[in-house]
């Protein structure tokens, strides 16, 4: 028996697989395809203080082995999410991670404070890296001092474990990780999307109405693996890894690089059953490469 369980701050996961924030809404749609209790956890779509309507359309574009998105944090606001979405997820036997977003430190604090009031949310994911909000979202994610500050404030505002989501659009990912570790982050989630752009030739305009969007999918996997590996060497807090995962072999690659658990985003779109499929395939892949549990594989890349 291959042991898939993973224990992380605030999260007892039956397996290391979960949908990435923003790619799974609040679970309702994919619950038509399978029982969400199969999942290790669900990472909810970003929540802000008030309702947001997001960016104009088109909001997505396809790229080679990837996609761009600029949804722009469309969400009904934290209060409505707690009232209408969290109870839906509480019906399932899976951990719930709330993605906390905002334009100001105060807004982050407000959202975190609100989520603190429900026991059906098990951890917070601090989205300091969403590249699509003009009012400063990106700065939190690329300036270590600002990242530290917002992490400290959110830690104060909440008793829940805080996982900080790192942006890959930085010169030095290790500096970012260390800053938030120092600020008391309980864990890291990485990577968010890389900022990209695509032009539509007939109109000479960006394909994404917001001009730029975040690049996700298999195209960015080597960058995710590199960053997770670098951060694993330099910090001690757990990492939930993501960025281009498509196969159970990819999951193992993330574990070896140093991720304790993984999230799948873009791959849900092409295959709505990807998560249950990966969960059922992972034991065989672990066995094939000589592991008897997920825990055992974490950080086991041999690098001299």
């Amino acid at each position, binding site marked *: 028996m291959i042991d898939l369980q993973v224990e992380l701050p605030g999260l007892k996961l039956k397996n290391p697989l979960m949908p990435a924030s923003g790619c799974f*809404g609040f679970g309702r749609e994919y619950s*038509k395809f399978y029982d969400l209790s199969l999942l290790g956890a669900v990472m909810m779509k970003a929540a802000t203080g008030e309702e947001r309507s997001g960016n104009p*359309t*088109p909001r*997505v574009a396809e790229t080679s082995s990837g996609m761009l998105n600029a949804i722009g944090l469309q969400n009904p606001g934290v209060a409505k999410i707690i009232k209408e979405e969290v109870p839906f997820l509480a019906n399932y036997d899976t951990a719930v991670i709330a993605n906390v977003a905002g334009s100001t430190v105060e807004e982050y604090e407000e959202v975190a404070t609100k989520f603190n009031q429900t026991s059906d949310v098990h951890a917070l994911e601090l989205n300091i890296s969403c590249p699509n909000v003009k009012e400063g979202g990106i700065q939190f994610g690329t300036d270590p001092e600002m990242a530290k500050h917002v992490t400290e404030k959110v830690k104060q505002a909440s008793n829940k474990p805080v996982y900080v989501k790192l942006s890959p659009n930085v010169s030095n990912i290790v500096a970012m990780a260390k800053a938030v570790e120092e600020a008391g982050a309980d864990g890291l989630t990485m990577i968010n999307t890389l900022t990209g752009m695509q032009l539509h030739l007939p109109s000479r305009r960006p394909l994404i109405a917001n001009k730029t969007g975040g690049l996700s999918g298999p195209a960015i996997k080597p960058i995710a693996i590199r960053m997770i590996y670098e951060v694993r060497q330099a910090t001690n807090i757990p990492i939930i890894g993501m960025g281009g995962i498509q196969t159970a072999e990819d999951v193992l690659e993330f574990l070896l690089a140093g991720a304790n658990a993984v999230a799948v985003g873009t791959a*849900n779109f092409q295959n709505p059953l990807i998560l249950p499929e990966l969960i059922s395939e992972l034991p065989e892949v672990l066995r094939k490469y000589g592991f008897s549990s997920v825990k055992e594989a974490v950080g086991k890349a041999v690098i001299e």
Partner: protein
Amino acid sequence: MKNTENEGWKNMRKVKMKLLEIREIAKDTIEMKLTDNYITEVAKPGQFISIALPNYTLPRPISIANIDRDKQELTLLFKIMGKGTNELAGFIPGAEIDCFGPNGNSFPLMSGEMTKVLLIGGGIGVPPLYYLGKQLKKQGIKVVSILGFQSSENVFYEKEFARLGETFIVTDDGSYGMKGFVTDAVTSVPSFNAYYACGPTGMLRALTTQLHNKTGYISLEERMGCTVGACAACVIPTTEGGYKKICHDGPVFAAEEVIL
């Protein structure tokens, strides 16, 4: 009238469909017949399916153009627009295609309330109207169709629609049927209870303005991520305020419900 009670997407499943026939029915326009025992059983007119092509990141949404339940046969009509549709057009009979669906809501049929309806299709917006028209006719409703195309080489399914009822073909350049836009042809249909339209946004905008005092349903398109309602890529602003998701709350909307 709202269509939110109409939650066809609750039946979504991932399936493999087997390609039975494929042929070019007009310039760059492909008709595919596929077989599958699930979607052909549950899908309704106006719904679409998502096609997952190997080596592409995003699924391709394609409307259901027809279903033969007895034969478990589903028809898709699509135009070669880019890489994905080009690749799809190269599949050969026997190929298995990864799909999921049926996605989205469907056209409200409102049996009993109507005696005559107008179907208005523009270009590659024509396909979903065919299955709709067949269902309407089956219910004894009189169907009149106006189909607009760029040019004679783009015209398809004229005979099929003619079998459903009176059919007007309109081409931008007048090379076939009437010259002009579908909006011109609409004036030649004296009376009808409701209209159903699908086509480019410009056409739908003109139509819904022209027919603002009629009951109408329009089927919309937008670039999509998940095609199931999870990613909020494919939104459309509503007259009530806020956004609806085309893949999930649509693609069919009451004409007055959305802001084009």
